[in-house]
């Protein structure tokens, strides 16, 4: 293992399979030394590193299966307007639009609902019932999506149908409603944590100056919690766009562009629903099969970006603002 004896400057160090630019070779030296002392650390490290390995494997294999579709259609896989399985035509634009439409509708309801509830629970609710309410919301969050879908189908869709006088209630609106109910606990949970983490010194300072509770919340707590709330919204978006079963059961699943584009009473076919519905019939190795993996890749990359952004936002704002130099 010759590379353990290198000088202390920036050097390209060859590590099996990867070229790493090691900024501090001493650190790596120390790392391998400690591995010799406690071999168990290697096992622990591998378990932790496993997550990175899995993500890479995912990216690789999904891209691999989707490559056929991408080479056949190129960018048209994403912006093509027609998704006709029988004609081997796979343009996912209506599907992507369907996903975004349903999610946008859901978030429009869930964000104000969730953030206000989080503020209420963290700041207004008396201690005694706070834990009980939080547990209740946690239970809401654990209800599996298939149950939400089930309720959507037997109860919500018919209601929407009769309310708006359409024949079937499986439309974008119903999907948005169910998705909103499913997203709210996430938004409440994360926002609530952020809001509770606002140090009480700031609240005390404001109250001591004669501010009312609401003024304190508005002028001190919310500005501090702002970026955390934004992160919770992004996480909610990520969850919503990845939701499969519930939206599948109520969205209508027709690959059309709603006319006009804001018509929530039109059925839509979100990305996740397409994959779930068509994977069963797609022959392995066929173009359809590959196209579905292409959709999977789009979803993977989209949620990856959203989650990384949310992470970055939270890390940029230190939750506890230090006061002293």
């Amino acid at each position: 293992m010759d590379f353990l004896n290198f000088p202390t400057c920036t050097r390209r160090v060859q590590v099996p399979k990867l070229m790493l630019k090691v900024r501090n070779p001493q650190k790596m030296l120390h790392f391998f030394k400690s591995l010799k002392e406690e071999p168990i650390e290697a096992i622990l490290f591998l378990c932790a590193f496993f997550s990175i390995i899995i993500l890479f494997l995912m990216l690789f294999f999904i891209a691999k299966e989707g490559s056929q579709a991408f080479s056949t259609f190129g960018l048209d896989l994403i912006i093509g307007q027609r998704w006709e399985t029988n004609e081997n035509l796979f343009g996912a634009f209506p599907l992507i639009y369907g996903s975004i439409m349903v999610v946008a509708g859901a978030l429009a309801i869930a964000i104000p609902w969730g953030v206000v509830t989080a503020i209420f629970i963290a700041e207004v609710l008396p201690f005694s019932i706070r834990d009980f309410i939080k547990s209740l919301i946690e239970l809401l969050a654990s209800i599996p999506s298939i149950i939400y879908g089930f309720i959507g189908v037997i109860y919500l869709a018919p209601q929407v149908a009769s309310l708006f006088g359409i024949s079937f209630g499986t439309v974008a609106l119903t999907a948005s409603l169910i998705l909103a109910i499913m997203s709210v606990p996430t938004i409440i949970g994360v926002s609530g944590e952020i809001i509770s983490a606002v140090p009480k010194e700031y609240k005390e300072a404001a109250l001591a100056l004669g501010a009312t509770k609401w003024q304190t919340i508005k002028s001190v707590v919310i500005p501090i919690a702002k970026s955390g709330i934004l992160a919770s919204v992004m996480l909610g978006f990520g969850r919503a766009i990845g939701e499969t079963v519930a939206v599948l059961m109520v969205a209508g699943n027709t690959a059309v562009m709603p006319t006009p584009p804001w018509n929530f009473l039109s059925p839509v076919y979100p990305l996740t629903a397409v994959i779930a519905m068509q994977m069963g019939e797609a022959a392995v190795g066929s173009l359809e099969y590959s196209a579905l993996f292409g959709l999977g890749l789009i979803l993977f990359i989209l949620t990856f970006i959203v989650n990384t952004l949310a992470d970055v936002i939270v890390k940029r704002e230190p939750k506890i603002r230090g006061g002293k130099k």
Partner: protein
Amino acid sequence: MTTRTKETVLFTALGVPMVTCLLVFLWIVFVLSTGIGTLRWDLLTTSVLQGGIFEMIVGTVYLLLGAAGIAGPIGVLAAIYLVEYAPHGKLTRTIDQAINNLAGVPSIVIGLFGYTFFCRQLGLGISLAAGWLTLTLMMLPIVIRGTEEAIKMVPSAFKEAALALGTTKWKAISSMTVSSAAPGIITSVVLGMARVAGETAAILFTSCVLVTRGLPKSPFEPVMALAYNLFVQIVALGELPEKVFGVALVLFFIVIFFATAAIVLRIYYRRRQPWLR
């Protein structure tokens, strides 16, 4: 005093969304309860071939236990590394972010990966084993995060006392820290099981079929599951027979059971461990 009354009105208005949450919960319970008549004890214990749902329940339990059996150890070890061993640096931050990203991958994408990697690449086919591995991916972030928190809450004084007596770092951690954190770890595994019990998209094409002859005799056979069955019956077969309501209810109860167990465990252990805030 008008400021006071203004505040009261404002806060009452602010409370409306929260009350709506509770109403939604009640609504869900109400809608589900309309089908409670379809639940009969013999439904749960009769084989599917005779109109019951026994194999589905067992299949779901098999999936749960297997996933917990894999995700549990890996998750705990990973969390121990992250809290006790990991140096502050780019690699640790990347691992941390990777865990968050893994948690955010849509379940259908995990199902796709599970199919192409576990079922096809590793040759497991549509099987219980493939289901275990796929569901592990979903459970892992929950177990890791929960264990991390549990370990962080153990006062480092415990570990330091052990170290001062001359044990190795690993011995100190495994004997003191982990056993003190055990309640929190158990809670997070239970939470993971709640998440996975109702999971449909991940098992859709990795481990389940509509009907099997009896229970799987090896992990390499496919399995029946409540969530899968419910899904296929409603979506593919387009029917809403009474039996489907029963399936939904059993699934609901199983998930709520695990979720409530996690909450109860958390409260119980908090009382028993006086060093927790």
